[in-house]
């Protein structure tokens, strides 16, 4: 297969959220072109929210993405609350952390079970697995449903949450509901271990690949940062969230409706692997054990291991949710009036909200006038921060697989894209592979 001419054109990469294309042209064994592009229709949220009121922004920006709508709502609320100088109660922070765990779990389980597993089992989708591997599929479905139940319980809905509002919650779960959820989480730990074993038996199917890059994630000295923290770079150290523009320098690439971003290198990576690399020491005990079992230790520079980092975070999400419910129970859950709407004194200001969502660090930045009307908005989405890294990984990976068949090259590149779990709806506020 040496010196072959290969054109790989994957138009709309499958099993990813949104539309992305891969285009590779190899002439006589030399890579002439290797491109990652996003053709998804642009949606213009930043322009849409201008002129809208402070109490609507979380509702509108939630619609940037169906999969990470809780994360977008939380980043939005944090930005609005920062702009208005609001603080929320410890209890509400814990409940918001639970909401975020619910979403991360839902998203990671869906990605690992529905989108990644078929590659490892050599099939095109999860559908044939429902006949060949029914018990495993059922385990994944059960865990996925439990994660959704958790979002539903805390947010009043699994997608586009309702109860998350500026200043707190319109409605909160009862302690009985929370302790019942805890029981279900505890009872599911054997299923989690079974899923981990399944991936352990398949992990060798991920290519051995390494390309050094920069990782960016939130960090906190006291916990594995998801809801809040300082921005941390594996290259340059930490800074407060309001300085996000110093990290995420977005730029327009003509072939993509999604923007790209860079920091001190040509690219950086965000997401589960970035978080694990930066915050490994603060993983829950069982999550750390899982990570160690896969020999996934900082600093890991193999992007395919982002899948395993997600698996580790699933274990962490279960354990940490149990911890949060224990703490809520120990403190005694304070009830609140029905249809609760915190009194908020509207004022002019600017605020930034940073949250770790399934695919990485997310920033919302709003400016409000004295009436609480948004005059300027900026949302920087995790997948946009990964686009440049995806393309550079492709370029570095190609020489390693160039002697393989077109089909194998195509699959390897698709698997690389999927490992990032890109969320292109978010990104255009993509994945197609074009080999030519």
């Amino acid at each position, binding site marked *: 297969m040496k010196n072959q001419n290969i054109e790989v054109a994957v138009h709309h990469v*499958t099993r990813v959220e949104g539309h992305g294309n891969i285009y590779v042209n190899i002439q006589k064994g030399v890579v002439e072109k290797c491109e990652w592009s996003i053709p998804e229709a642009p949606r*213009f949220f930043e322009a849409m929210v201008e002129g809208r009121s402070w109490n609507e922004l979380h509702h509108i920006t939630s619609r940037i993405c169906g*999969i990470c709508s809780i994360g977008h709502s939380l980043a939005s609320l944090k930005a609005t609350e920062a702009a208005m100088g609001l603080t929320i109660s410890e209890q509400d922070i814990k409940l918001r952390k639970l909401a975020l765990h619910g979403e991360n779990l839902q998203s990671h389980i869906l990605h690992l079970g529905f989108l990644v597993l078929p590659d490892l089992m050599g099939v095109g989708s999860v*559908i044939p697995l429902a006949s060949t591997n029914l018990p495993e599929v059922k385990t994944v479905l059960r865990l996925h449903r439990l994660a*959704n139940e958790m979002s539903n319980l805390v947010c009043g809905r699994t997608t586009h949450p309702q109860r998350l509002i500026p200043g707190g919650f319109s*409605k909160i779960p009862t302690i009985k509901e929370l302790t019942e959820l805890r029981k279900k989480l505890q009872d599911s730990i054997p299923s989690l271990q079974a899923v981990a074993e399944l991936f352990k038996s398949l992990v060798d199917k991920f290519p051995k690949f390494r390309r050094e890059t920069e990782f960016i994630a939130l960090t906190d000295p006291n916990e594995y940062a998801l809801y809040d923290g300082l921005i941390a770079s594996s290259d340059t150290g930490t800074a407060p969230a309001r300085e996000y523009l110093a990290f995420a320098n977005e730029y327009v690439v003509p072939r993509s409706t999604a923007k790209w971003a860079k920091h001190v290198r040509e690219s950086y990576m965000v997401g589960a692997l970035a978080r694990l690399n930066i915050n490994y020491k603060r993983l829950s005990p069982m999550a750390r054990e899982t990570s160690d079992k896969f020999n996934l230790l900082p600093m890991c520079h193999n992007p395919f291991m982002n899948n395993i980092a997600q698996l580790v975070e699933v274990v962490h999400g279960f354990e940490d949710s149990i911890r949060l419910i224990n703490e809520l129970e120990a403190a005694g859950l304070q009830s609140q009036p029905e249809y609760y709407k915190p009194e908020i004194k509207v004022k002019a200001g600017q605020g930034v909200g940073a949250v770790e969502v399934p695919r990485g660090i997310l920033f919302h930045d709003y400016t409000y006038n004295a009436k609480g009307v948004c005059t300027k908005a900026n949302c920087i989405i995790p997948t946009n921060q990964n686009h440049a890294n995806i393309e550079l990984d492709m370029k570095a990976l190609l020489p390693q697989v160039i002697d393989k068949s077109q089909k194998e090259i195509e699959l390897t590149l698709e698997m690389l894209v999927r490992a990032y779990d890109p969320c292109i709806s978010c990104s255009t506020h993509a994945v197609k592979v074009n080999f030519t």
Partner: protein
Amino acid sequence: MKPKVAFFDFAGCEGDQLQVANLEEELLTLLGQVEVVAFREVMKEHNDNYEIAFIEGSCTRLQDEDRLKQIRKNAKIVVAIGSCAAIGGINSLRNYKDLESVKKTVYGENAKLFDSYAARPIDAIIPVDAYVYGCPIDREDFLHVVKSLLLGKKPETPTYPVCVECKKNENICAFERGQFCVGPVTRAGCNSCCVNEGTICWGCRGFVDNPNENAHKEVLIKYGFTVDEAIGKFKLYFGWQEAKR
């Protein structure tokens, strides 16, 4: 022979296709009744031989019209799922603004590189046979529509406003709580899910057939809201429907 179905998405958040994945065990039952031949979000295989096409998302640019027309040609039944596909949804919020300035806000000097027009529901481009409303769609509602179609029936859609369901759920009216709500003119079928969770109806299912706007206006005045406030809230989801009226 099981009917062949396909899923497609245009400008949207894919939250509606996610609700299909969220059917969990019921998804397995559904897969026993139909054969999924295209669903880019979850499968690599793709086949254009299908009877029912489910489409999520709005059409927001000329270049997407051909893809929609091709789907229409391939399918016997086209179903619009979710607010963006069914009524234009939140995407149409930008239709109130000057398109060039909208593009500039997001892409700056590179705005000219990207083609876009007013966001619209898919029935603005091709005929649609059935609708699953909501942002996101309700899983039970989706199953109801699928079952009806498989039985060869036209799915029923409520022709009364959200208030009917909200009253049945014994919620305290949002207006009584001093909040503006679009429930009186919004199509029901969601079981007033947002009000049940302590907030308001935002109008995601679109205008009910023959909305009683005069009564709504009376309610507004009674509770001291202005017409501007009403128009502001209508813009969130009703943009395309308003423009057509």
